[in-house]
């Protein structure tokens, strides 16, 4: 069983069959919650209200391509890892994706399940570490603030 059980995985592909296949595989191997969307717009809407650990998106989709989708994902939840899973492997789109969207990984179809699992696992771990770091930093900030407060009160008390 995974250490990062109960992770939230967002999967976007206009082909239902890809979602079904990846979901079946991840459900067999992990305890992740998989949220599949054939419409990138709905995937973005989901991210507005639900934190995800990793967003995996196809590239060529009607209305919104994978880079646009992941760029919105980055705006909404910058710490969530982003993966492009594409059958349309042209170099320009890959470079753009890596540079503009800060991609965690670029995967080509047909994908290798073992590799996909390794990458998704790494992505989730990274996101969860980032979130823990963020919460620790904010705890540290709070502690620092209250320390400052105590210091001010102490100084006031002695003056």
């Amino acid at each position: 069983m995974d250490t990062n059980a109960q992770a939230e995985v967002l999967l976007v592909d206009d082909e239902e069959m890809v979602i079904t296949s990846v979901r079946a595989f991840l459900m067999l191997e992990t305890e992740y919650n998989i949220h599949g969307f054939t419409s990138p717009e709905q995937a973005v809407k989901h991210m507005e209200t639900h934190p995800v650990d990793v967003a995996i998106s196809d590239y060529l989709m009607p209305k919104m391509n994978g880079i646009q989708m992941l760029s919105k994902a980055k705006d909404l939840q910058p710490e969530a890892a982003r993966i492009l899973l594409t059958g349309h492997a042209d170099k320009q789109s890959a470079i753009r994706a890596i540079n503009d969207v800060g991609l965690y990984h670029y995967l080509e179809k047909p994908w290798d399940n073992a590799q996909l699992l390794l990458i998704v696992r790494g992505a989730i771990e990274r996101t969860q570490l980032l979130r823990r770091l963020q919460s620790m930093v904010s705890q540290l900030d709070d502690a620092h603030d209250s320390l400052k407060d105590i210091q001010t009160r102490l100084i006031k008390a002695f003056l």
Partner: protein
Amino acid sequence: MDRPTEVQNLEHEIATLREQMIAMNRLFSVGQLAAGVIHEINTPIASIFSNIEVLQKSLDVLERQMQDTATPKARQIVETMRSLLAVDRVACERISAIVRSLKTHARAGDEEFRDTAIEQLLDDSLRLIQADVKNRVTIQTEYEALPPVQSIPHLLGQAFLNILVNAAQAIPGEGSIIVRVKKQGDFAVIEIEDTGVGITIDCKNRLLAGGFTTKPLGEGTGLGLAISRQIVVDRHGGSLDFESEPGKGTTFFVRIPLRHQPAGEA
């Protein structure tokens, strides 16, 4: 030469060129269609591949769950499913290999030199002609160990494919094609030998120039070898020669430098 004959010759030449142009255009459209089809096939293949793996693993889990409680019939069903999945996987791998081969050849616009496994490139081209000659021509490969060669893979693949298609078409009934790869100094040497009809002396000289074909209309543009020569000689700084004996067969020799020397530095 008197003028009417000259005009007639020129008219004939124009007609031939026009036919070639139409044939080229058709090939170009087919090529573009193929590139689109490859992309379309990729996703369903990926899906099937993944599903086969998931089903195989699910069967393992199922078998563990059944343990001693399963009836012989249930066991037999699980075994049948397992063997069918194994067949599906092999079938899928074959489709996938063909698609990969086509992909190598359809990467137009990509003009970068990269380290290439020549053997793989030849296998890709052989896989494509295999479907055409399956029960007629036996294909044999003799590859010596070779370091990666700097090439523009889809172009070099096209050159190999042209020569292989010619070899296959030169064999009227049954015959064989032998492909050898050797290293000679700083060059990779690829020999493609066929047991076809051979090339007559008259044809020899006109062959590499382009615009010459003995094939029926619609089967050849007469440009295959000229294009191959351009790819091998002009683009890769190699050489393309052949030896032929009418009635016995032809061997093509492609020499490609292992390291690419950009123009002006050679």
